[in-house]
């Protein structure tokens, strides 16, 4: 049975990304949307669109029954979950299959296995892949566990077995804090996941976060598409990702790829997945976890391999066998992704929802933007504030950074605050330019700067002129509105001025 119509069980930029892939290979798409997303870009771009509930995710994007009902109603024969929401929910994956639909993702069993951090660690250890030293099961006796942890060496990270998103996680600096931290973290995990089981890992200091993209074929054989370095993070969220990594050479790439392929094949993985590693100063790598979905940062891999990962997902799930895509022998050039959030860096990264009064994406050779918004549209308050991903490609890292600076400057967003300026400052930083960044780089950098680089004198004067012109115009418009009684004073005034000047919209200061 050939796949014909794909329901996209997501929103925002990733829903747009999947719909674009559908259009490119002439698959029909069904968007689902909450009441907060009635005018959202995926709804505009899909062939079909179905309202599935109120803004609250539990009543819409996380509601399995409503999504399945939408799929049947609009005769979708496949479901792509994107990332986040239901993408790593094995119950959903199994349900999709039970309903006779094609699941664009790995088997539910692989999702389950890798979702249980302890089970994943055990499997990986058995396969001979190095893992971060730590407990080989949930902690049953905290005192006994402390003895083991002391052998591995402090600091130690306590983590929830059912964990995710930093909840139920505690960094323990010294043995004296062990018991108190364990109890607090277990309570938190119990509250957050209904599962208070904890395990521990040695805390690697100043590690890099490097991950391998894999594609598992329907025959159980997986291939590696190389690494992504994701060490620029804030609050355990990736902010900037790149490929290749500045510390990975062909030999290390081959070894990491082999480890990732072994991990994927060991859990019967089919489809696109990512094996995450921590890398220490001596370039030793340790398995961290496997993400059983398409990653936010998949475009950097696409840029250096020429491979369309979403379309590969469709091909793998299509059930007609699968030929791995041709890959260049080495990464072709260098790619960097910047996550653009609607957050205000000058105000402690508070989310900044609102109407996008201006939205113009950068362009030019080697520039790609994946986004889920448009000028005049809204960034709703209910969801993740990621509005766009800027992906730049260059023949080498230096060219990519130069292109990134220009593209970030060109990215025009009005109506909401964004993290664009933070990216500009980060990539101008010598440590980033030299490729010497570890996961503590961004928090350290942000703590060390208030972001207020001095303002060049010309710019300062131009800002003063612009602010003054704006205020003068507002004042004049207000007084005219009151005085003239015209229904639309602004426009006619505008046109009259244009006629006077001989050119529409041009004015000289007077």
């Amino acid at each position, binding site marked *: 049975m050939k796949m014909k119509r794909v329901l996209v069980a997501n929103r925002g930029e990733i829903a747009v990304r999947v719909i674009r892939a559908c259009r490119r290979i002439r698959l029909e798409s069904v968007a689902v949307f909450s009441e907060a997303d009635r005018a959202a870009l995926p709804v505009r771009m899909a062939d079909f669109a179905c309202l599935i509930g109120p803004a609250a995710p539990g009543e819409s994007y996380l509601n399995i029954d409503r999504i399945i009902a939408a799929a049947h109603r609009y005769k979708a024969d496949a479901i792509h979950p994107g990332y986040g929401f239901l993408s790593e929910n094995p119950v959903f994956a199994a349900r999709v299959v039970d309903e006779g639909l094609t699941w664009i993702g790995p088997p539910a069993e692989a999702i389950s296995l890798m979702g249980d951090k302890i089970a994943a660690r055990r499997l990986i250890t058995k396969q001979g892949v190095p893992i971060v030293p730590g407990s080989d099961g949930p902690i049953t006796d905290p005192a006994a566990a402390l003895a083991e942890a002391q052998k591995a060496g402090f600091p130690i990270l306590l983590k929830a077995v059912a964990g995710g998103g930093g909840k139920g996680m505690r960094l323990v600096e010294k043995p004296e804090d062990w018991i108190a931290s364990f109890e607090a973290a277990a309570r938190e995990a119990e509250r957050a996941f209904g599962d208070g089981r904890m395990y521990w890992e040695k805390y690697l200091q100043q590690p890099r976060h490097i991950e391998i993209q894999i594609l598992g074929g329907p025959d159980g054989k997986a291939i590696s598409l190389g690494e992504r370095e994701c060490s620029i993070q804030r609050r355990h969220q990736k902010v900037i990702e790149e490929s290749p990594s500045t510390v990975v050479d062909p030999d290390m790439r081959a070894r990491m790829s082999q480890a990732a392929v072994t991990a994927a094949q060991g859990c019967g993985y089919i489809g696109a997945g990512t094996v995450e590693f921590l890398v220490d100063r001596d370039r030793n790598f340790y398995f961290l976890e496997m993400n059983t979905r398409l990653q936010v940062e998949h475009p950097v891999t696409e840029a250096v391999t020429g491979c369309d990962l979403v379309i590969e997902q469709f091909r793998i799930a299509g059930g007609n066998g699968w030929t791995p895509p041709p890959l260049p022998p080495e990464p072709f050039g260098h790619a960097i992704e910047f996550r653009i959030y609607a957050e205000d860096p000058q105000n402690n990264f508070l989310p900044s929802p609102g109407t996008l*009064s201006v939205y113009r994406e950068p362009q030019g050779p080697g520039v790609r933007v994946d986004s889920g918004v448009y000028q005049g549209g809204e960034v709703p308050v209910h969801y993740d504030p990621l509005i766009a991903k800027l992906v730049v490609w260059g023949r080498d890292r230096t060219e990519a950074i130069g292109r990134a600076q220009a593209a*970030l400057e060109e990215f025009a967003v009005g109506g909401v605050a964004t993290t664009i300026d933070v990216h500009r400052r980060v990539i101008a930083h010598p440590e980033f330019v030299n490729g010497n960044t570890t996961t503590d780089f961004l928090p350290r950098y942000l703590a060390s700067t208030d972001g207020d680089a001095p303002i060049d004198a010309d710019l300062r004067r131009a800002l*003063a002129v612009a602010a003054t012109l704006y205020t003068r115009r507002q004042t004049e418009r207000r007084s005219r509105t009151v005085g003239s009684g015209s229904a639309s004073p602004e426009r006619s005034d505008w046109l009259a001025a244009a006629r006077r000047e001989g050119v529409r919209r041009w004015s000289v200061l*007077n």
Partner: protein
Amino acid sequence: MVGKGYLTEIESERHRVVFNGNGAGAEVSIDGDSFEASHVWLDESGQNLLVLLGGRSFDFRIEEEDDRLMLTYNGRRYRGLVTDEHLADLKRRAGISDTPTGRTAVKAPMPGLVVKVLVALGEEVTKGQRLVVLEAMKMENDVKAPRPGRVTNVAVDAGQPVNGGAELLVIE
């Protein structure tokens, strides 16, 4: 210098801006120095303004945020505040004070749920001190003090949902 001008604050530094001349040779005087200048409103939104100043080209986006202006240039945001000297004159003569009253309402930057209120009525706070934790867009966010002062009103409690722009507390 010709006529009255504007006092324009950019990121807390004040400049005097006076527009002179007319037609093609238009000039603007900034802090006493003259520059050739022209501008174009780029579309009907009135938020996109191109300024050519001494030959340099500046493409600005301008929005209003509370009583201030927020100007964006090449991805970075700058705060501005403009006072018309003529209006200020009139106010002065009418005995209306132009200085801030000293009362600052701290508002919710977005709709959300108040998770914690970290200060009490009457407490002295420093600039940047965390006042309220607000949960929105899947994250906990700190609302910090925009200036030092004393908390003279606390309008919300933990667990309370608030709209964007709702007054959380007052610093004087």
